[in-house]
């Protein structure tokens, strides 16, 4: 491309593609060609404003100008309106950074997503990429771990365990081979921040994992990616190849003499493999069944070796901590929830997408100020936060603050930060039944409370709904939930009672006989 060519951004994010971004991109390339206009088409990640996808941006001399909901049929008129120079058009949004939805976010982890070419190492570095790893390479392993610990970063996969403590355990072990494993088995409904990051800024994840490897002395990393994410799979493989080619992965990371290899492994459609010990068994080529703990994966993890295993967003939060310092990151957030959380607005909301905010924002602000209320226009009746194992919350709980402890205090779970909204047409007894049904489908089968309890749970809820010995069966369901909660080996069986019991507690009227 010549120096005079204008950059046009059309997302290659899976949601944007599902909304037609591919044909929009093709139409732009084709129209530019037939009109003899020199453009450079960049396939970026999504800015996270799904109601505007496909969102096209033109890099004009005065900055990037966005146009929303651009279908292929609109492309000719965009050229007519000279969108390459920010011309007026019905779909013109203006500068994304000036939109109030975007302006008030605190994008640390997602700083580059939607901005850069996801696969370009040069673009990554030009936007602050690899600054964290460069710093890390000049530090001792202990100092890197200390920075992560001091930042207050907690596991973003849902369990919220302090990341630095995990890393420190692995650092303190001596072993021939240690591993860094990324849990990219993002199976919780309502969550897509891992996917967006892997598609929109995969090098950020690669950088975070490399820092972890350098810190604890691990030379091999694996990204365990769910098979339902074909777009992320392609993006990761391409970004890894580019990182190798540019000397940022391999036997001599950036001339430091440190060795770090990275490979993507595909899961195979098992929700339970998002549980870290199941994931490790799956990576070893076995059935993805939960392991007893202890031993912790940090001591005996993949192939019995010390293993750092973290979620995508945990790893992707590390580069900025090593770049800007632990204090910089720690200054965001409240209480024991430090830093920012990429929150995902999903389900029945008008403006769904990705909102990265410091901890402390309320559910209500997210649902109404960011989410714009329901998509259907009906009242929001219930929200489920934290995936299929998260409690259902009614309107009276919407002032809950995004903070691990605040959610726990309400018997709920912040989890991976996915928020699913339902309008008033939802049948909460049906949702409770589904929670048990899902557990039955996805249980690994190792422990009885989960494997059998979930099937019995479906049956008991069916009897309650059919009006058969209701009082007895409510008591039985309570008892069953108690057994699952306290007797299950992992969170799958242990937390399935949360959506069930919260549905009964807050939406009892839906359990009436019909």
């Amino acid at each position, binding site marked *: 491309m010549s120096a005079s060519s204008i950059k046009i951004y059309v997302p290659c994010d899976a*949601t944007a*593609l599902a909304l037609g971004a591919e044909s929009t991109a093709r139409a732009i390339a084709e129209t530019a060609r037939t009109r003899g206009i020199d453009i450079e088409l960049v396939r970026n990640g999504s800015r996270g404003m*799904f109601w505007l996808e496909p969102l096209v941006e033109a890099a004009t001399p005065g900055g990037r100008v966005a146009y929303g909901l651009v279908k292929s049929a609109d492309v000719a008129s965009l050229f007519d309106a000279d969108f390459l120079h920010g011309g007026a058009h019905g779909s013109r949004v203006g500068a994304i950074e000036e939109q109030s939805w975007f302006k008030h976010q605190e994008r640390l982890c997602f700083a580059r997503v939607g901005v850069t070419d996801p696969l370009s190492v040069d673009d990554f570095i030009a936007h602050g990429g690899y600054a964290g790893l460069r710093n890390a390479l000049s530090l001792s392993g202990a100092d890197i771990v200390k920075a992560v610990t001091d930042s207050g970063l907690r596991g973003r996969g849902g369990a919220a365990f302090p990341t630095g403590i995990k890393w420190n355990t692995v650092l303190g072990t001596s072993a021939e081979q240690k591993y860094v494993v990324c849990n990219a088995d993002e199976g919780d409904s309502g969550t*897509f921040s891992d996917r967006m990051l892997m598609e929109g800024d995969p090098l950020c994840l690669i950088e975070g994992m490399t820092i972890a490897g350098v810190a604890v002395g691990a030379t091999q990393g694996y990204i365990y990616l769910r098979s339902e994410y074909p777009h992320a799979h392609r993006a990761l493989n391409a970004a890894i190849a580019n990182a190798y080619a540019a000397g940022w992965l391999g036997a001599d990371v950036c001339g430091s003499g440190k060795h770090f290899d990275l490979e993507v492994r595909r899961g195979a459609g*098992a929700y339970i493999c998002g549980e870290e010990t199941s994931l490790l068994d799956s*990576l070893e080529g*076995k059935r993805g069944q939960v392991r007893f703990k202890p031993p912790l994966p940090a001591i005996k993890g993949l*192939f019995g070796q010390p293993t750092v295993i973290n979620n995508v967003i945990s790893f992707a939060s590390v580069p900025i901590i090593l770049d800007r310092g632990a204090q910089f990151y720690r200054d965001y957030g409240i209480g024991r929830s430090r830093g920012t959380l990429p929150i995902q607005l999903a389900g029945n909301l008008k403006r*769904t997408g990705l909102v990265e905010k410091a901890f402390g924002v309320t559910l209500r602000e997210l649902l109404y100020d960011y989410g714009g209320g329901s998509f259907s226009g009906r009242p929001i009746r219930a929200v489920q936060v934290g995936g299929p194992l998260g409690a259902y919350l009614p309107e009276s709980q919407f002032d809950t603050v995004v903070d691990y402890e605040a959610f726990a205090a309400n018997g709920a779970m912040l989890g991976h930060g996915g928020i699913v909204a339902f309008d008033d047409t939802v049948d909460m007894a049906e949702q409770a039944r589904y929670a048990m049904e899902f557990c039955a*489908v996805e249980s690994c089968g190792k422990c009885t409370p989960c494997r059998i309890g979930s099937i019995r749970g479906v049956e008991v809820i069916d009897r309650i709904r059919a009006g058969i010995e209701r009082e007895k069966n409510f008591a039985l369901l309570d008892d069953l939930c108690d057994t699952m909660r306290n007797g299950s080996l992992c969170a799958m069986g242990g937390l399935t009672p949360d959506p069930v019991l919260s549905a009964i507690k807050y939406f009892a009227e839906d359990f009436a006989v019909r």
Partner: protein
Amino acid sequence: MKPAKINVVVEGTTRKASELAEPMRQAVITAIDANRHKPGALLPILHAVQDALGYVPPESLAAIAHELNLTRAEVYGVVTFYHHFRDKPPGRAVVQICRAEACQALGARALEAHAKRTLGIDFHETTADGAITLEPVYCLGNCGCGPSVLVDNDELHARVTPAAFDKLVKAARMAT
């Protein structure tokens, strides 16, 4: 709720990949050669076989076990554990409908019922003309714009109304 999966056929099952019938022989040998050096090679091998053939043939399990020095029971246990692996060839297009909560909030239950009714099949079944296999899936990461449908593990569709579903099924039939 897991679908009934593989019936192990012991008689006539070869332990040698080289003795499998084509195109299985080529797919299994290629998958093993490309992955056997990897630690934890079984899943990558099963993926490679299914990517090539559309399913993991039950008659290939003994050969895979033999090559990896595993028992046939171990391989059978793994292949049946994961929802992703099929034991019979799918239709010419695989249509997966998301059943998870975020899609439910936007009408996935109605879409699921519509799909089963109009195609005349249940989940894990294939239409009589061999065109469409219908499968459930639990989240496609498109939770902001459901109901979501994935075709052939590659082509994602958002905001799929029953009418949009009919259109994409028609397109899938035409394409194959």
